[in-house]
């Protein structure tokens, strides 16, 4: 079966969507990513959609599902590289992609993820410290 590859870079899982995804491919990606977050204990997911020329409500929903699921598994999702024409169309379609954080490109997305993963760790350390007290 055709699959979208998931790369691991440190604590981040990186997905680059390069094709017009048919529905099953998108659903498979959602399942694969969930499994991979659990398996690797990843703290972040970066989805690069810069090659994606169409995001309809189905793909929008999948992106939202991925963000929600990763949050449940204690990982952050950032979607990067949305083409301006796609962004304009999504607004008119009525999809605001709630709960999905976006960044201009992979580099900025990585910075954003790193910052929020570091922030999570600080919270954990504070929690640990207060437990020790």
């Amino acid at each position, binding site marked *: 079966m055709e699959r979208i590859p998931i790369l691991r870079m440190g604590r981040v899982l990186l997905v680059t969507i390069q094709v017009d995804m048919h529905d099953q491919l998108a659903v498979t990606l959602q399942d694969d990513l969930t499994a991979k977050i659990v398996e690797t204990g990843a703290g972040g997911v970066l989805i690069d959609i810069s090659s994606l020329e169409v995001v309809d409500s189905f793909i929008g929903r999948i992106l939202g599902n991925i963000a929600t699921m990763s949050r449940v598994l204690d990982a952050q999702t950032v979607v990067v590289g949305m083409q301006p024409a796609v962004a304009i169309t999504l607004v*008119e379609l009525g999809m605001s992609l709630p709960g999905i954080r976006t960044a201009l490109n992979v580099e900025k997305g990585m910075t954003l993820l790193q910052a929020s993963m570091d922030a999570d760790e600080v919270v954990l350390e504070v929690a640990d410290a207060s437990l020790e007290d």
Partner: protein
Amino acid sequence: MPIRSAQDLVLVRQAVRTWSAELKFSLVEQTKMVTAASELARNTLDYGRGGHVTLEMLQEGLRKGLRLSFEDKGPGIPDIDLALRDGYTSGGGMGLGLGGARRLVNEFDIVSKVGEGTRVTVTRWK
């Protein structure tokens, strides 16, 4: 073009992209038309039990346009106003397909009869 499988949705998107580009639609116009087509084709597949779409290039004086007509012989839509409402879905969708597609085109027409089927026609002018 037939709309019988998820793979057909990909082919419909590609064809609408090609035709929109041929009509020299801007990138944003192309994207809107392809996205509307994707929504309507998925409805034809999911709710209309499959059907087909007809693509038509229009010329009215100096004006050029693209018309897409999605037809199925499915169960039909009992309440069109309700179906058009943002957030309404009888399946597990986002309920944005019909209303969203209407916003993404210049002309939108829907004819549906319960027990007979549905035809949604959309037009975008250059």
